[in-house]
């Protein structure tokens, strides 16, 4: 069985993904950033940890084979297929507040991922203290020799996708990034597709 949902530009989405099921995220129009948080569905105090994921695999970019680790250093999901080759663990989510630092106070009225996470998380009993540094699928954040870091043009293209296998029952929150001030989505948010396949399906 397969369930398929198109997430509109700027929108949020969430779902339980059962152990063994796969979640495929398709970048329908290319160069869209998909902000992503994942929790143990039965104990949400166990949740995605960017630092545990980074030091477990010895690097900051995610691709096929990368294991998304929890804050207790246990596996939550594994990337089983990836058409792009590089995804971000460092940049976290855009917020109305951080946008005022990055671009100026004129951006405060714009949509931002943290608001999506707060609204979508509230549907599952999660609050602000439950938000941590997230994954940005399709976002490209290189680090230079001197430590300079920045969000640059993405490597994705229309129709590219990645697939994650749930290593236990997990709750996934997604903010389909509405950012219009950096190149994470080509300055133009577009729709993505979320597909959940039962265990053992292709």
């Amino acid at each position, binding site marked *: 069985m397969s369930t398929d949902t198109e997430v509109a530009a700027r929108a949020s989405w969430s779902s339980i993904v059962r152990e063994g099921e796969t979640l495929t995220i398709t970048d329908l129009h290319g160069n869209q950033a998909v902000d992503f948080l994942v929790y143990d569905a039965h104990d*949400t*105090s166990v*949740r995605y*940890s*960017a*630092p*545990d994921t*980074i*030091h477990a695999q*010895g*690097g*900051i*970019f995610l691709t096929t084979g990368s294991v998304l680790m929890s*804050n*207790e*250093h*246990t596996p939550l999901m594994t990337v089983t297929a990836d058409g792009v080759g*590089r995804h971000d663990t*460092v*940049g*976290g*989510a855009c*917020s*109305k*507040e*951080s*946008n*005022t*630092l*990055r671009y*100026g*106070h004129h951006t405060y009225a714009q949509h931002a991922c*943290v608001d999506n996470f707060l609204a979508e998380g509230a549907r599952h009993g999660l*609050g*602000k*203290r*439950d*938000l*941590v*540094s*997230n994954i940005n699928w399709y976002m490209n*954040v*290189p*680090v230079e020799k*001197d*430590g*300079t*870091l*920045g*969000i640059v043009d993405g490597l994705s293209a229309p129709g590219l996708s990645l697939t994650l296998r749930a290593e236990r029952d997990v709750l996934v929150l997604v903010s389909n990034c509405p950012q219009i001030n950096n190149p994470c989505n080509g300055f133009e948010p577009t729709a993505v597709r979320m597909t959940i396949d039962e265990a053992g399906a292709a």
Partner: protein
Amino acid sequence: MAATATTYGARAHARAQEGARAEAMPVVPARDWQDPPCEAGHLVWAETVAGGNYTHRVLARGTELRLTDLHGDACAHLLLHVDGRPWERLNVADTVKVQWNAYLGEGVLLLSDQGRVLASVVADTAGRHDALCGTSTLVRNTERYGDGSPQSASPAGRELFKLAAAKNGLEPRDLPPSLSFFQGVEVRDDGTLDFTGSAGPGGSVTLRAEQDVTVLIANVPHPADPRPGYVSTPLEVLAWRAAATRPGDPLWDATPEGRRAFLNTAEFLTARGLA
């Protein structure tokens, strides 16, 4: 009969310990610390934290906090929450993204998730720090060292953070990714990491609290430390009354992003009658 077989004897035995000295201990009152790095009487926290141990304190806005790696194998894992409003806390992703730099050093602002400054790094003689790898966990330390529980010989940073958090009314879900000082990593072109280790004994870093903050510190090995043994040496912690960063301070205007962070912080504190 042994001297401690009675309540009177046990009391006398316990009281006779006053004045004992160990390398790792708090000095109370802090002003009794020998050779303070500030004006006499301004010291508010003086402690040497043992390897594999933790500490915590609420610091008033304007307090400066100096961490020193005494023997060269300290690693100060650090978290900050606003005192009384812990849902505003250190956001490592915003800290590196907003300032366009993955590495910590002098002039870096430790940002909250509300577009404000929690603390500033006002001095750094070590240069080996990390914002990417977080702290160690029970699972990993048990794999690597045989145990990671707080009372073991190889406590995990996250387990110590849970205790420090609990003593401040916080829960495990209040522990976001942390920073670590004195043990660094560098990012290669392909995104993989090089562990750089310590800069050696005596390195120090000084933070300035820009709001009233709860400071949680775990002094445990960096999770990427490749050495097979659990190597963790004492961390010196000194804090003293000073002044928060103000308009006109070079740090206030050092970057446009930082200036807006200080402006946001000032607006917020002024509205609350706190500054």
